[in-house]
């Protein structure tokens, strides 16, 4: 019973916070509304007995939203004075599409005859996940690892505006490097 109440409270919180992202006037509020939505979903995942995934969702999303808020402020340059911002295009069609998608998905959720549950969860779900990742699903883990590494490199390449020639000079011989921002390790 308690689980059901918690689930519905969290569900309402998640959806309302999600809607608030596009409704509030402040960038900080929008970012952290999304964080609240993620936390609510993370706790719901906890209710669905996937402790590791749920906690990791909360962990990652709070961090991401802290960074997100910084980017919002950086790229949308407004003060926290709750300036009204309406930066939308084609609102009507977007709303129509969103409602249409929701109706379709909801109809699917309610009308499809879902099969009965197959199998039972492992005693230790987290350990089972770990063994799955390090055993039969090793390929997934390997692929995700490589993709993450590539993402880091690609992200830095895209975002950095200075190449090594800016740092070390045209012949790459300048030492120490010419950095606008000194580093902490002897530079």
């Amino acid at each position: 019973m308690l689980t059901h109440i918690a689930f519905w409270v969290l569900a309402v919180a998640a959806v309302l916070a999600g809607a608030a992202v596009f409704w509030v006037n402040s960038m900080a509020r929008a970012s952290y509304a999304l964080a609240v939505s993620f936390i609510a979903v993370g706790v719901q995942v906890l209710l669905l007995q996937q402790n590791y995934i749920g906690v990791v969702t909360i962990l990652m999303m709070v961090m991401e939203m802290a960074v997100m808020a910084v980017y919002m402020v950086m790229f949308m340059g407004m003060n926290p004075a709750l300036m009204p911002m309406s930066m939308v295009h084609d609102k009507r069609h977007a709303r129509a599409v969103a409602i249409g998608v929701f109706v379709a998905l909801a109809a699917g959720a309610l009308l499809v005859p879902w099969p009965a549950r197959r199998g039972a969860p492992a005693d230790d779900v987290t350990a089972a996940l770990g063994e799955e990742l390090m055993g039969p699903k090793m390929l997934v883990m390997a692929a995700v690892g490589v993709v993450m590494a590539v993402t880091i490199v690609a992200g830095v390449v895209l975002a950095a505006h200075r190449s090594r020639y800016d740092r070390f000079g045209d012949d790459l011989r300048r030492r120490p490097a010419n950095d606008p921002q000194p580093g902490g390790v002897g530079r």
Partner: protein
Amino acid sequence: MTLPTVLLVAAALFSVGLYGALSQQVVVMVMMGLELMLNGLILAAAGFWWFLAPDPSGQVLLLVIIAAMTVEMAMGFAVATLLHRIRRADMTDMAADLSG
């Protein structure tokens, strides 16, 4: 808390995110919409896992969704930074060169 209700909530999150991703003009806000859609996806995958087939491989799918989300964020931020530096643009409409 049954599978249809979990999916209903997930669908609501997905649709709200879709609305945001379609209607927002600022790149970072579009990313927020995408994140919200993935948020719904996480919930739906967790629901499917718990109510249909609670074996470990389903959890792997959730992990992949979360990984996809981080990649989306990282690349989104990088592209937004690049776009802003080169064009002083923060709107998707200002970067529509490839639209047909």
